[in-house]
C-alpha cells in the first residue's frame, strides 16, 4: 500500500518537473496601436515570430486604440507597474513620455546585443528617438505623407512624363493649373485631401511650411520671425484648392479615401499606410492604374512631414525587467528589424537601412518610387506638446479647419494657432 503511494507520488513529481522544465518559455507582453491594413501585416509578423521561436519566446500581442487612449493607458499602467514588456510608440511622442518617466532607456549595450547602431538607421528617425543624448526607442519605420495619383486620369490630362511618373506638378501655380486641367478633363475633384480635420491637414501644411524653409519653432518660441507668414502661405495653398472647387470642403478621412478609390478624385494626399488599401483593391481588379510619389516641391525645396513607429520598453514602476525577459525583448526587436521588409508592404518605409538598401525593397512599387523622400523628411518639433494626438495637433484642428474651408483667413488662423501654442505650459 505504502509503496504504491510512493510510486504514485514519485511519478506525479516527475511529470510536474518535466512540464515545468519544458515551459521555460519567456512570454513577451506586447502592446501596439496598429489597426487597419498595417495591423493585419503586423499580426502576420508576430505569428511568424512565434512559429520560429516556438520553444523559447512567445509574443502575447494586444492591439489598443490609436491616439490619446493608447498613450494614457501606457502612462497609467507604467505608473503602477502593469505596463507591457515591449510596445510600439510614435517617435514624436517620446519627448513627452520621457518627461513623464514612462520609457526605459535603451543602452548602447542593448543595441550591441541586437546588432544595431547609429549606422543602421537613417539620420532623421535616429535623432527622433533620442532625448538629451539618450536613446529611448528603436526606430522601426518612417511613415510620411505621399501624393497618390490616378495614372489614367493624369495621362489623359497630359500630366504623365516619359518616365511614367507625373510631371509639371512642382510649384504652387503649376499644381493649381494641373488641378484645373484634371477638373476640365472630367474629374469631379482634382484632388481629395482631408479638409474636415485641421489636425490631419496639418501634416500637409507642416510640410509646405518646411518647403519654404520655415519652422514651427519649439517651447516658448513658436512661429517667430516670418514663420507665421510662411505658415499662412502654406494654409492658403489648401484653402485656394477648396475655394476653386478642386478639393471638396469639410471632407473627412474615410470619405477622401473613398473619393480617390472610386475615381471621383484624380489625386489624394494621404499617409503611406493607405498603400495596402490600394494594393489589395488592385489585386481584386477593382482599382485603376495608380501610383504614389513624394510630395511635389510647392515652394523652394522638397520636404515631407513624417513620423516613426518605434519599439520602446516601458518603465514599469517597481517591476524592472528580469535579465531573461530583457534578453527576450531584445530578441523580439532584433527579429522585427530584420524582417521589416514584409512591413514595407504596409506602405511604411523601414528605418533599418540594411532593408531599404536591399534589392528586394528596391523592386517594390510604389515604395521604391517614394523612398527618395527619406532624405527630405521633417519630424514634429521635439516638444512635450507635440506629436500625434497632442495639444499641438489639437491646436491645428481648431485653428485650421475653419481657414481651409474659407470661414476665416489663413492669417487669422495662424495668429490663433500662435496664441494657443504660446499659452501651453
Amino acid at each position: 500500500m505504502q509503496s504504491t503511494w510512493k510510486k504514485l507520488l514519485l511519478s506525479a513529481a516527475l511529470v510536474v518537473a518535466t512540464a515545468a522544465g519544458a515551459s521555460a518559455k519567456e512570454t513577451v507582453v506586447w502592446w501596439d496601436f496598429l489597426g487597419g491594413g498595417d495591423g493585419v501585416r503586423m499580426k502576420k509578423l508576430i505569428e511568424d515570430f512565434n512559429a520560429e521561436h516556438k520553444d523559447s519566446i512567445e509574443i502575447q500581442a494586444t492591439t489598443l486604440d490609436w491616439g490619446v487612449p493608447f498613450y494614457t493607458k501606457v502612462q497609467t499602467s507604467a505608473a503602477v507597474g502593469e505596463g507591457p514588456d515591449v510596445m510600439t510608440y510614435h517617435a514624436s511622442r517620446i519627448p513627452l513620455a520621457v518627461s513623464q518617466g514612462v520609457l526605459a532607456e535603451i543602452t548602447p549595450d542593448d543595441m550591441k546585443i541586437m546588432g544595431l547602431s547609429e549606422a543602421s538607421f537613417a539620420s532623421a528617425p535616429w535623432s527622433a528617438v533620442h532625448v538629451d543624448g539618450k536613446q529611448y526607442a528603436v526606430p522601426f519605420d518612417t511613415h510620411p505623407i505621399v501624393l497618390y495619383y490616378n495614372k489614367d486620369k493624369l495621362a489623359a490630362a497630359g500630366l504623365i512624363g516619359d518616365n511614367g511618373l507625373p510631371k509639371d506638378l512642382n510649384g504652387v501655380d503649376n499644381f493649381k493649373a494641373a488641378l484645373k486641367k484634371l477638373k476640365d478633363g472630367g474629374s469631379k475633384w482634382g484632388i481629395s485631401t482631408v479638409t474636415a480635420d485641421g489636425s490631419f491637414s496639418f501634416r500637409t501644411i507642416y510640410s509646405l511650411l518646411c518647403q519654404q524653409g520655415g519652422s514651427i519653432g519649439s517651447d516658448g518660441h513658436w512661429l517667430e520671425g516670418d514663420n507665421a507668414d510662411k505658415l499662412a502661405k502654406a494654409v492658403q495653398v489648401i484653402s485656394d484648392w477648396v475655394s476653386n472647387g478642386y478639393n471638396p470642403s469639410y471632407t473627412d478621412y474615410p470619405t477622401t479615401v473613398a473619393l480617390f478609390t472610386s475615381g471621383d478624385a484624380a489625386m489624394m494626399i494621404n499617409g503611406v499606410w493607405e498603400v495596402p488599401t490600394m494594393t489589395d483593391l488592385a489585386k481584386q481588379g477593382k482599382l485603376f492604374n495608380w501610383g504614389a510619389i513624394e510630395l511635389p516641391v510647392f515652394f523652394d525645396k522638397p520636404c515631407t512631414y513624417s513620423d516613426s513607429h518605434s519599439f520602446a520598453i516601458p518603465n514599469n514602476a517597481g517591476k524592472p525587467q528580469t535579465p531573461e525577459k530583457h534578453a527576450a525583448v531584445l530578441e523580439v526587436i532584433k527579429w522585427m528589424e530584420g524582417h521589416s521588409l514584409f512591413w514595407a508592404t504596409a506602405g511604411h518605409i523601414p528605418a533599418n537601412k540594411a532593408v531599404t538598401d536591399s534589392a528586394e525593397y528596391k523592386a517594390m512599387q510604389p515604395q521604391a518610387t517614394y523612398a527618395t523622400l527619406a532624405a527630405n523628411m521633417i519630424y514634429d518639433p521635439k516638444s512635450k506638446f507635440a506629436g500625434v494626438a497632442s495639444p499641438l495637433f489639437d491646436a491645428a484642428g481648431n485653428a485650421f479647419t475653419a481657414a481651409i474651408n474659407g470661414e476665416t483667413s489663413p492669417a487669422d488662423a495662424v495668429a490663433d494657432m500662435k496664441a494657443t501654442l504660446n499659452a501651453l505650459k
Partner: protein
Amino acid sequence: MLKSRRNEILTAAVLVAPFVAIYGWLFIYPTLQMVQLSLTDAPLIGAGNWIGSENYAQLLSDKIFHTAVWNTSYFVIMTVIPGTAVALAIALMVSRLRGWAQSIILAAFFLPYVLPVTVVYVIWDWMLNVQYGVLQHLITPIMGQPVNVWRRLPWLLPMTALITVWWTNGLSILLFLAGLRNIPQEIYEAAQLDGATRWQVFRRITWPLIWPVTVLCLTIQLILQMKIFDQVYLFSMGGRTQATMVLVQYIFDQAFVHNKGGYAATIAVALFVIVIAFSVLQFQALRARSAQ
C-alpha cells in the same frame, strides 16, 4: 427598555456599516481627493505642488471654460424638456395601441437605447456624411449644398442634441407608459360621461396624475445631459473642438491630452457644484409645483 433601544441602534449601525464603508471608500474619499487635487498643480499621474486657489482664479478667466458652460447649458435646454415632451407624446400614442402592435412599436422606440454610443456615432456619421450620406438629400434642398454638420459650428450641438434625444428616449417612454397604465380607467370613463374634450382630459386628468413620472424623467435627463461627453467628443474629434467644448469633455481634455490633473480636478469640482445646485433647484421647484 433603554438597553433594547441601544441594541437597536447598534444593530442598525452594523447593518448600515458595509454600505457606508464602501460608499465612503469609493465615492466620498475620491471626491475629497479631487478637491485636494484641485488645489495643486499635479500632472495626470503623480503628486504636485500646493498652489492654493490659483487654479480657481485661472478657471474664472478661462475663455474655454465659459464656452463649455454655455455649450452645456445650450445642450441641456435642447434635450431635457423637448426630450421629455417627445417621450410623453410617444407614450400617449403607444398607450392607445393594443396587443402585439403595441409591443412591436414600443420595441422599435426602445431599440436605440440599447445601442452603445460608438454604434450610434458610426450610424449617424455615415448617414450625414457630406459626400455620401443619405440624409444629405434632405439637407441639400434647404441649404443649397451638402453641409458637414459636424464641422459647421451652428449645426453640431443641435444635431448632437437631436441624436441624443433619439438615443435616450426609450427609457423615458417606458417610464411614462408605466405611469399612464397606473391611471385607473374609471376616471377616464367618468370624464367621458361628463362630456370632457380630449384636451380637457389631458390637462385635468392625465397631466396631474402623471406628474411624479414627469418629475422623475426631467431630473434623470437633466443630470444625464449635464454630464454629456461621448457624443460631442466623437462627433467633433479633429475639428473645432474648442468652440463646441462641453464641461466633461473639457475635464478629459485637460487631464488626458494636456496632462494637467490639478486643473482638470478644478473643472470637475466646478461641474460638481453646478450639478448639485441645479438638481436641488429643480427638485424644489417641481416639489413646490406638485404641492399646489
